[in-house]
């Protein structure tokens, strides 16, 4: 599918849409239906709607329908308002863009129109620093060479200026001519690939000829870019409106669901089933009771003839009565706290990077809990672990090492001497460093030269060459000026054989303007250059050099060159042109053609560039590994460099503490055997306290992922550390996918465009806003300035978020179940007819105000201080293994709500029996009892109290009375005078005290017992932290080691675990028991290797 764009011809303009940008999701008309439809896509909302509709049937509703409709409408209104506000903002920004004035040539006349009226085929005129309104093909600029510079930050996040050129056919046209130009551009239909534009252009006579001219992305100005350093530029609109590259690549990313959300959903489902069974049982019992008992009770006056639906009435009443089991407030509460977690990340001063002036940012506000449950971190190397500040350190030219002694080749006198003595191989080496790149020299006003480049390596090479007196001075069109030792040299760049991640090398074909000779200059990764060397070249020495440099953690590039014969070049040049103007498979064809030229190279030498580790990386990795997180390093760099960096940053240990296993091979069989061997070694040695890691390179990985996926999955499960080198972006994403398929929570962290896919694929994507641009940071859920902030992000923010959400969600269920159980218990005393004990106002207020507000302050709760967590990162296991929110902790809360419902109900009906058993009073007594318990439960479960919490808990408590006093003074209300009567009655206060005592006493006792005699690690640290102050380190802890296990297990057996309403079953305190038994750690000494093999699926163990 192609589109044909007729330049400057209005007769075709209606074929394609105008340039009106619209990012809005709704229009004024469809907002309500569309928004409601979306909201009702969720199960919870459907459920609430069903309940609310059932309540409209007054025969079955136990309470006023308003008690459900009120909160429901409120919740819907909140979500809808939020959506509407977002959409309105989008509309406003769209309108701003649409109404901007632009200069456009229509019918040969330049006119000022609004941006939204641009049509495909119009010629758009831009001035310096203007934003590009739609996708254009450049046809003219103020620059005589036909070059213009654009800033593409908004498009791809890269901050460097990019050069765009006028296609050759249009070169040299002046603005008069440009207004009259006619022609056709043949281009593909709109897509979202911002790196590719495979099109052709043909101008109509009288302009030049009707030769087709290939167009690439270098000839385009894409929407949202800014024109820089160029006085004016004009271009033909090819894609407009939402069909631009930017518009097409925009999209709402799939919402990520956290593990906690998944569990909450499951629990909700379970509660729903429980509710249905309660309804069925009670409905059945109610119908039986009705037929046997109620019919005798003349005052109830059942009619003799029943309507056909009579049998459904009592079950439906119970359904409505029990509908509060699923708390309607939980969604709102969770949304609220989650956005606060995200804000805390944004606000965190300690995660502010002073150097680059970037604060941390949580772009995705919904997944903070997942940070606390991370099990695998997949990290990029360059720019993530390292600073991505490239410095040229050493080189080897023609077998001679420079910079080995001083560590800095630029200060190596031997090299400086060689340069001054015009040693030919050295000169050529420097020439490649200077010419074989896409660096743009920019002369500043003061006369100094700065370089703009897209690659840090190229920047380092050009700068290094400049220090060695080979200065890149100018690039004017294809003519490059070089100043060498004060002597001016000119080269004409004939072709650029671009770098791609597949080719892993780039070349330029240059013509020496002095001699006229044509040269091919190549630089690239060693493994792609060595095979291209001429027969007979001694590459042995260079292989050793690369090895040696990589050992030092340096990045190497191999430089080579070849002289081309004129006829050879011309022949090839034709092929190249053909390939570059093909519309189909252009990249592949170009690569193929390039391959034909890049052969028989003479290898000149190796450059070695240093990329320093970021500060705090080893410490961060060590801490996170201690917290039980597994690290995988996925890098595009070569194996030895990767291993070296891994050693430097505590990623792996050197022998004898650690062992590195290599998976390699070139064929399917070799790789398979190698993989099996590694797997076996892993299993055998897993009982030893040894850090094992495996290394695999991109080639072997490709084979493994296609043929040995199962074995590799097994390996991935048993291995805590892995290094994958030479991997492509898509392999990175595949690895993430593989770990995710084993049900691991993965976090991917990276900084560059090649990490974007991995970041989007992982459960949590973290981007480092680094030097490679903001691309990764934009795609990520969290962006941080430095790798070391990851520690705080996970251990502090992730952990707190998980703990807080666990409490909040379970508490929400607890309080809903409590009130529901009271209703159910009451139904046994009211003829199983579905009478509600509580009135509508109380029920609604209970859910929306009384119980929701205090617990929201759990966003400030901290079980342990940040310092303690940092010192004892192992504590993260409680979050990773989901020990604070799982079916068994939930069972504890469930039991507690049942117990509390019994306490409230039984005490109320006994204290308020006989002459006191008035309905409104009794209902208020029960409600107050529930509120009293709530206040104490929240107090007991909260770990730290700031004034906010104290205010919320006890302020809410007082507000409960205030609200009820107010309602009690309205004569028309059903509750008129009730609260006044009760508060004057000493029996009321005595009853409240009794309910609190009976309800909280056993819970406090059990909690204390567990806390003291069967404590979790969190409890121990809490005590340690608070009794001794936070000043103690792990070092002095370890000195106190002594075997306490026997003691602990005895108590564990004695403690009553099955009926305890606060029981939070921690299967065992040893991390391996809840993690995976196949984890190679010292805990496994007691297991036989056999049992470890049989339980290869770890999640089963974890979910228990």
């Amino acid at each position: 599918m192609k589109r044909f764009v007729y330049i400057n011809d209005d007769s075709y303009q209606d074929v394609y849409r105008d340039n009106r940008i619209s990012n809005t999701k709704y229009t004024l008309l469809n907002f309500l239906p569309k928004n409601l439809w979306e909201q009702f896509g969720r199960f919870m909302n459907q459920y609430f709607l069903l309940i609310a509709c059932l309540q409209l049937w007054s025969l079955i509703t136990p309470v006023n329908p308003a008690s459900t409709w009120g909160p429901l409408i409120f919740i819907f209104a909140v979500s809808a308002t939020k959506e509407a506000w977002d959409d309105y903002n989008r509309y406003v920004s769209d309108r701003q863009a649409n109404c901007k004035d632009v200069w456009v040539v229509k019918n040969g006349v330049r006119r000022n129109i609004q941006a939204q009226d641009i049509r495909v085929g119009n010629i758009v005129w831009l001035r310096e620093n203007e934003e590009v309104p739609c996708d254009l093909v450049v046809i003219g600029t103020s620059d005589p060479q036909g070059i213009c510079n654009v800033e593409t930050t908004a498009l791809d996040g890269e901050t460097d200026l990019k050069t765009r050129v006028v296609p050759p056919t249009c070169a040299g046209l002046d603005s008069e001519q440009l207004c009259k130009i006619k022609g056709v551009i043949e281009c593909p239909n709109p897509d979202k690939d911002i790196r590719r534009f495979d099109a052709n252009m043909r101008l109509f006579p009288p302009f030049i000829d009707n030769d087709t001219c290939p167009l690439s992305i270098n000839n385009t100005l894409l929407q949202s870019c800014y024109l820089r350093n160029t006085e004016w530029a004009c271009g033909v609109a090819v894609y407009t409106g939402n069909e631009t590259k930017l518009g097409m690549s925009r999209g709402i990313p799939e919402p990520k669901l956290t593990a906690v959300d998944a569990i909450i959903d499951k629990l909700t489902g379970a509660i729903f089933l429980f509710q249905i069974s309660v309804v069925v049982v009670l409905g059945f019992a109610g119908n039986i009771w009705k037929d046997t008992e109620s019919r005798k009770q003349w005052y109830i006056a059942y009619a003799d003839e029943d309507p056909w639906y009579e049998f459904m009435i009592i079950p439906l009443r119970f359904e409505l009565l029990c509908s509060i089991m699923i708390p309607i407030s939980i969604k709102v509460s969770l949304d609220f706290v989650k956005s606060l977690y995200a804000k805390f990340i944004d606000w965190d001063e300690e995660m502010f990077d002073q150097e680059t002036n970037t604060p941390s940012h949580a772009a995705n506000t919904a997944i903070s809990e997942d940070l606390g449950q991370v099990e695998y971190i997949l990290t990029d190397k360059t720019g993530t672990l390292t600073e991505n500040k490239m410095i040229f350190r050493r080189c080897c030219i023609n077998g001679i090492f420079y910079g080995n002694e001083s560590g800095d080749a630029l200060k190596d006198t031997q090299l400086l001497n060689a340069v001054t003595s015009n040693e030919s191989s050295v000169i050529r080496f420097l020439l490649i460093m200077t010419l074989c790149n896409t660096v743009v020299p920019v002369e500043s006003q003061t006369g100094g030269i700065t370089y703009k480049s897209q690659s840090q390596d190229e920047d380092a090479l050009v700068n290094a060459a400049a220090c060695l007196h080979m200065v890149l001075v100018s690039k004017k069109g294809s003519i490059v000026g070089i100043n060498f030792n004060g002597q001016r040299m000119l080269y004409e760049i004939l072709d650029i054989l671009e770098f791609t991640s597949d080719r892993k090398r780039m070349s330029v074909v240059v013509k020496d303007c002095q001699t006229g000779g044509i040269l091919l200059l190549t630089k690239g990764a060693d493994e792609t250059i060595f095979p291209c060397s001429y027969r007979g070249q001694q590459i042995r020495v260079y292989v050793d050099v690369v090895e040696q440099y990589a050992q030092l953690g340096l990045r190497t590039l191999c430089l080579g060159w070849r002289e081309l014969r004129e006829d050879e070049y011309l022949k090839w040049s034709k092929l190249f042109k053909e390939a570059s103007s093909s519309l189909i498979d252009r990249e592949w064809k170009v690569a193929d053609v390039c391959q034909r030229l890049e052969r028989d190279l003479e290898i000149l030498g190796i450059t070695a560039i240093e990329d320093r580790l970021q500060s705090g990386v080893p410490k961060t990795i060590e801490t996170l590994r201690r917290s039980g997180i597994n690290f995988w390093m996925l890098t595009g760099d070569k194996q030895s460099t990767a291993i070296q960096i891994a050693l430097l940053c505590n990623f792996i240990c050197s022998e004898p503490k650690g062992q590195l296993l290599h998976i390699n091979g070139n064929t399917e069989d070799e790789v398979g055997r190698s993989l099996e061997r590694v797997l076996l070694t892993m299993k055998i040695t897993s009982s030893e306290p040894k850090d094992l890691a495996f290394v695999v390179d991109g080639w072997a990985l490709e084979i493994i992922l296609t043929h040995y996926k199962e074995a590799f999955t097994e390996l991935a499960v048993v291995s805590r550390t892995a290094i994958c080198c030479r991997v492509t972006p898509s392999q990175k994403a595949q690895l993430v996918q593989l770990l995710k398929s084993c049900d691991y929570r993965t976090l991917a962290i990276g900084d560059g465009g090649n990490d974007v896919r991995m970041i989007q694929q992982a459960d949590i994507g973290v981007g480092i806003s680094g030097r490679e641009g903001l691309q990764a940071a934009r795609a990520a859920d969290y962006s941080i300035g430095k790798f070391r902030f990851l520690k705080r992000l996970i251990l502090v923010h992730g952990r707190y978020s998980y703990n807080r959400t666990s409490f909040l969600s379970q508490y929400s269920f607890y309080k809903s179940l409590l009130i529901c159980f009271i209703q159910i218990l009451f139904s046994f005393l009211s003829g199983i007819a579905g009478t509600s004990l509580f009135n509508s106002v109380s029920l609604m207020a209970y859910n929306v105000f009384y119980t929701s507000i205090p617990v929201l302050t759990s966003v400030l709760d901290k079980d342990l201080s940040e310092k303690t967590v940092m010192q004892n990162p192992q504590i993260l296991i409680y979050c990773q293994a989901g020990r604070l929110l799982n079916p068994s902790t939930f069972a504890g809360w469930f039991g507690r709500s049942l117990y509390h419902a019994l306490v409230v109900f039984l005490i109320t009906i006994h204290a308020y029996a006989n002459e006191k058993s008035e309905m409104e009073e009794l209902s208020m007594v029960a409600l107050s009892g529930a509120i009293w318990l709530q206040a104490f439960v929240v107090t007991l479960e909260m770990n730290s109290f700031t004034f906010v919490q104290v205010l919320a808990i006890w302020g809410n408590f007082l507000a409960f009375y205030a609200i009820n006093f107010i309602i009690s003074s309205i004569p028309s209300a059903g509750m008129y005078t009730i609260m006044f009567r009760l508060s004057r009655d000493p029996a009321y206060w005595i009853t409240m005290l009794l309910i609190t005592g009976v309800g909280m006493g056993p819970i406090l006792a059990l909690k204390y017992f567990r806390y003291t005699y069967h404590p979790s690690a969190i409890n121990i640290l809490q005590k340690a932290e608070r009794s001794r102050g936070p000043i103690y380190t792990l070092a002095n802890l370890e000195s106190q080691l002594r075997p306490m296990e026997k003691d602990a297990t005895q108590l564990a057996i004695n403690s009553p675990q099955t009926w305890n309403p606060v029981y939070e079953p921690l299967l065992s305190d040893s991390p391996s028991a809840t993690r995976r038994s196949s984890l190679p750690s010292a805990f496994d000494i007691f297991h036989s290797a056999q049992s470890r093999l049989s339980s290869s699926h770890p999640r089963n163990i974890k979910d228990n």
Partner: protein
Amino acid sequence: MNHSNSSAAATASGSADAANLRRNSRRPKYSKFTQQELPACKPILTPKWVISVFTIVGVIFIPIGVASLLASRDVVEVVDRYDSACLPANVSHKDDKVAYITDRDTDKSCTRTVKITKDMNQPIYVYYQLDNFYQNHRRYVKSRNDQQLRDKNEANETSNCDPEKTTADGKPIVPCGLIAWSLFNDTYSFSRDGKNITVNRKHISWKSDRDHKFGSDVYPKNFQNGTLIGGGKLDSNLPLSEQEDLIVWMRTAALPTFRKLWGKIEVDLKENDTITINLENNYNTYSFSGKKKLVLSTASWLGGKNDFLGLAYLSIGGFCFVLALLFTLLYLIKPRKLGDPSYLSWNRNPAGQ
């Protein structure tokens, strides 16, 4: 070496740029709240704290329990069940009982005598108690219309009153609904040694109900005129606000066993006094085997006779003392060092991780 130069320059000119930097800094604003550093109190469950909580609870609960129990014991209560005793001797089968009670022409008066077991000081409350009577049944409890009771202009407002909304010819019933329709209608009169004891039947209902819930200008209309006769009738010349039996009855009970105030005796009764009760046994509880009782009771500050609170307080107080003791013993026998890090699993197995 562009990079190293520029960074060196940046550090050198750092102080000069400082002001500029501060202005442009995106550093988050510091506050204790945003850094999650609000001063917080972090109590933990130390043995000292927990044991003292339980002791204090015990110390508070036991006196309250004693006081409640004494209050309850001070109350004198005389209960007389009369539903079966007030049937003629020949009525024993359930159907006969129902036939007897629903026959409007039979004389259903009945005489009972009760002995006062202890001195009773006035006021002595007269309650009737019904058992197995579900005033809280879903069909029953909703079958009323408060607007109609309050406002004479709303007589036609009979929603919720099913099935006692209107008479057969469609006239609205005031007061409508099952609750009013099933009004309790047994009557009692008391005498001691042949002398009548006056029972004050005024102000037995809540004042707020008389003033605000039941209109002083709303009169019963079409009440108990249907074929189906429920409970008692109302004097159609008295406004609802003065029909106190109805007002009391309409305060529905939440439990199937309940007492409702019928009147107050404003003289003291002495121990061993014999009270003769002449009652009219009109109300049908036989069809559902409900009991009817007459209760004479004094009241304490805590209400009527109810040992529950006292006993519960005493047992909970005692339980707390036991727990406090138990924890103290445990603490002494098996002392645990607070927050001993050696309990941490990863410290027990230093090689792990």
